[in-house]
């Protein structure tokens, strides 16, 4: 005797898997809320088929009231997968839950038909089906939520990360446009990259542009000063550009001494100085 002998539900899924799947798909494909652009019909068919199949297997031996038991693991994994993809595809949580919840209609319709003559069992099974699918629906929303949070956390992390390509502006002239905050351990890596690039290219001038650094405090200043000193030892001079007026005032109040370093308000001004120093001359072509 199985633990589900009180319910007709497992038998229903076993006998009518194909019919239920067809009804369910027809419903889903005809509803107005379907987002054709987001999800291809073939994908929806495949997901529905898989869920129907794993649901059928789960109820044969698993609990009908608690979907946290091991028998339900394949169903939960499948739903987690579907939820994650939908979160990424831009579905909202309601649409994501609807996928599972829309299975209620074909199930209940079929139950009614099959259990017409057993009203007590019918009432019991309607109740079971509702609870079961509600649990699964809630589970998809939970996963969805979690997945969105992960996306947001990742985006925040990316915002915090410094992005930093070293670019060669001219023969002998490198530029490092710093964009982001300089709190993370990556700052060290970025500065080391610049030094390596100086070695590789034999550049004589490096422009460190801090236009994209929102706050210049003692830590940032120290990073800059250390890099300038190291570059100097390697025979390259640094120019720091992107010192906006408010940054200049703040640096002075902090008491940071940048007088030993050439600083410029803009990258363009720094580049002009760099060209001059490397001996390049420019004249405007007259027509």
């Amino acid at each position, binding site marked *: 005797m199985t633990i589900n002998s009180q319910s007709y539900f497992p038998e229903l899924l076993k006998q009518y898997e194909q019919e239920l799947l067809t009804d369910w798909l027809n419903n889903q494909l005809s509803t107005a809320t379907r987002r054709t652009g987001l999800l291809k019909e073939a994908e929806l068919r495949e997901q529905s088929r898989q869920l129907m199949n794993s649901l059928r297997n789960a109820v044969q031996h698993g609990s009908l009231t608690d979907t946290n038991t091991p028998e339900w693991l394949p169903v939960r994994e499948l739903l987690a997968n579907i939820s994650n993809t939908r979160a990424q595809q831009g579905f909202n949580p309601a649409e994501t839950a609807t996928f599972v919840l829309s299975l209620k209609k074909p199930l209940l319709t079929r139950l009614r038909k099959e259990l017409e003559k057993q009203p007590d069992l019918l009432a019991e099974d309607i109740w079971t089906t509702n609870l079961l699918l509600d649990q699964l629906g809630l589970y998809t929303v939970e996963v969805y939520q979690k997945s969105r949070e992960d996306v947001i956390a990742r985006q925040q992390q990316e915002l915090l990360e410094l992005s930093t390509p070293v670019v060669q502006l001219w023969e002998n002239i490198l530029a490092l446009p710093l964009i982001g905050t300089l*709190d993370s351990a990556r700052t060290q890596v970025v500065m080391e990259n610049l030094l390596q690039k100086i070695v590789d290219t034999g550049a004589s001038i490096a422009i460190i542009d801090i236009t994209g650094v929102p*706050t210049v*405090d*003692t830590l940032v200043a*120290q990073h800059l000063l250390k890099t300038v000193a190291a570059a100097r030892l390697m025979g390259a001079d640094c120019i720091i550009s992107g010192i906006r007026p408010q940054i200049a005032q703040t640096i002075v*109040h902090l008491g*940071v001494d940048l007088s030993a370093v050439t600083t410029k308000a803009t990258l363009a001004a720094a580049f002009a100085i760099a060209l001059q120093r490397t001996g390049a001359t420019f004249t405007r072509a007259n027509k």
Partner: protein
Amino acid sequence: MPVQRDEVMPIRSSEDVVRVRQMVRQWAVTLGFSLVDQTKIVTAASELARNTLGYGGGGEVQLEIVQKGIRSGLRLTFIDQGPGILDIELALKDGYTTGGGLGLGLSGAKRLSNEFEIFSRPGEGTRVSITRWK
């Protein structure tokens, strides 16, 4: 001095320090601080938050909007339960550092603020409060 709005943020990681700066900037903008004043209070906050994290072993900051007559201001109070500071006068000297820094954070934060208060007892922790008026 009536307080209009306040909020507490944790300082447990360098990401938290970034978040504190962002929040202070947001509040300073809301209060209508000039760009220079925004930059000053954000930079001071960055210094104190990093001290809280690095020397105080982590802690929290309380942000408050305060009112004095018709002037409004932003007050930030950094609190930790770390080792405390033995000699406050020394810690406030330009260039004094026990952590290989520039030794300008604490004194710089003082210069960047209109009001500066520090309480610290060895073994009990440190509390630094700064206010910048609009």
